[in-house]
């Protein structure tokens, strides 16, 4: 009797500590976002957005979602900040004196947004309580996934099983969206003739900074190792193709920022990366087609090899495809912004 009582007390205490930490972090996020709304300097707001992404990562960890925290850390805090910072020097306008709407309009917009917030708060009053165990959304399909994953799929990670097996169609569509984003970045930039006689202020090149280059040299192997680890172990631990692709891409981007053009030459590599991204989607689709060929449903991994490990094998293959596509598309987007900077400076 006593161990269970102390156990329940422990869990209640843990939950209250989690909630208290969540409130603290969330108040920090709101303060940071108010700073973004008030600042008229773009670089400042981009860096503040990166800070808020890092705090959101901690919140995701507290909310039992290490997969989402990993994705947010590599994409929201790292890659999106780099891409935002790369586009700033190519833009001509000076942002410090960017015209703002008149004051009465700002007050009017503020009132509208406050009214929206009040309306949503009234609606949210009917939601289940935070952390309620018997809420409706935990009862039906999620309960099925949790109860049947170990028997049906044979892997411990529920997130990987839902992502790759139960809802494989969704993920195929999302991988295709990422490929389309990379290809459309190439098309948008290729269609644009560079205009001459413009003065562009280049930001101070980070590759001249000895602190940055030394640290990059030390940590890059570990980042790549970590990316490969979560790519391979996506079924048994937090991780998977999306996170691994983003982390590997951020490793390459970091190396490229410290030693420009030393790893891959931009112009020749963009086409190769586009081909690799397409191959990733092709691996995914071909895995589905194998099942179709063997007389099962599309993306039913039971058909790949006979035996119980077929599902796990299929999930590993499509995670590889997702990882290739995500990594190449993010690198294409980064390189396209770099190439544009390079042309403009010339």
């Amino acid at each position, binding site marked *: 009797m006593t161990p269970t009582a102390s156990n329940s007390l422990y869990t*209640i205490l843990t939950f209250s500590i989690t*909630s208290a930490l*969540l*409130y603290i972090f*969330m108040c920090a996020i709101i303060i940071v*976002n*108010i700073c*973004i*709304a008030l600042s008229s300097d*773009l670089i400042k*707001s981009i860096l503040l*957005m990166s800070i*808020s992404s890092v705090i*959101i990562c901690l919140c*995701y960890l507290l*909310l*039992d*979602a290490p*997969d*989402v925290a990993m*994705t947010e850390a590599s*994409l*929201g805090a790292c890659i*999106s900040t780099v891409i*935002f910072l790369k*586009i*700033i020097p*190519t833009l*001509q*306008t000076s942002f410090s004196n*960017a*015209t*703002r709407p008149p004051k009465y309009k*700002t007050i009017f917009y503020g009132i509208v*947004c406050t009214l929206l*917030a009040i309306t949503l708060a009234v609606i*949210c009053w009917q*939601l289940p*309580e935070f*952390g309620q*165990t018997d809420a409706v959304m935990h009862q039906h*399909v999620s309960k099925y*996934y949790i109860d049947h994953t170990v*028997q049906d799929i044979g892997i*411990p990670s*529920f*997130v990987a099983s*839902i*992502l790759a097996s139960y809802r494989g169609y969704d*993920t195929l569509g999302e991988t295709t969206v*990422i490929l389309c*984003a990379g290809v459309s*970045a190439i098309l*948008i930039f290729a269609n*644009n003739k*560079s205009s001459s006689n413009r003065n562009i202020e280049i930001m101070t090149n980070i590759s001249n900074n000895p602190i940055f280059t030394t640290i990059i040299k030390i940590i890059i192997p570990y980042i790549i190792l970590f990316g490969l680890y979560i790519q391979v172990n996506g079924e048994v631990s*937090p991780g998977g193709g*999306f*996170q691994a692709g983003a982390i590997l891409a951020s490793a390459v981007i970091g190396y490229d920022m410290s030693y420009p053009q030393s790893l891959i030459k931009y112009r020749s590599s963009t086409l190769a990366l586009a081909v690799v991204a397409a191959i990733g989607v092709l691996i995914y689709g071909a895995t589905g087609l194998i099942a179709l060929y063997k007389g099962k449903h599309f993306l039913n991994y039971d058909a790949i090899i006979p035996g119980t490990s077929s599902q796990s094998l299929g999930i590993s293959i499509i995670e590889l495809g997702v990882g290739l596509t995500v990594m190449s598309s993010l690198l294409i987007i980064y390189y396209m*912004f770099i190439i544009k900077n390079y042309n403009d400076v010339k």
Partner: protein
Amino acid sequence: MLSSKLIYLIPISLLSLGLFIIINNHNYIKKIIGLAIFQNSVLIFYMFLSKVRNGVVPIAQCTDTSSHQCEIIYSNPLPHVLMLTAIVVGIATTSVSLAIIYCINKNFNSCNENEISLHIPITTLKQDE
């Protein structure tokens, strides 16, 4: 039980802040930042819904499928999957929108909404000639 529902006010205030940044600024990059905040608020809202009291990270801890002895409460894994892919797709689409802003800046020499709206009639006239 007032305090447990109070936490939903945080994504709501983030959402209205993001909307305020979108409509209050003329600069397109600032508008994209507002859109990113808007997106973050929706992601946080879903993650709040997925949390279960006393739940643990959704990775199966008992591999023994036959027995029903291990009754571990897991947090809901379904919103995790949806939000994980939403983050990746969101960054990809944000990058495309930044590329389009780059094109706008090339053609109009500005990425402020009010300046571009002044330019548009003139350039269409030039093209007609």
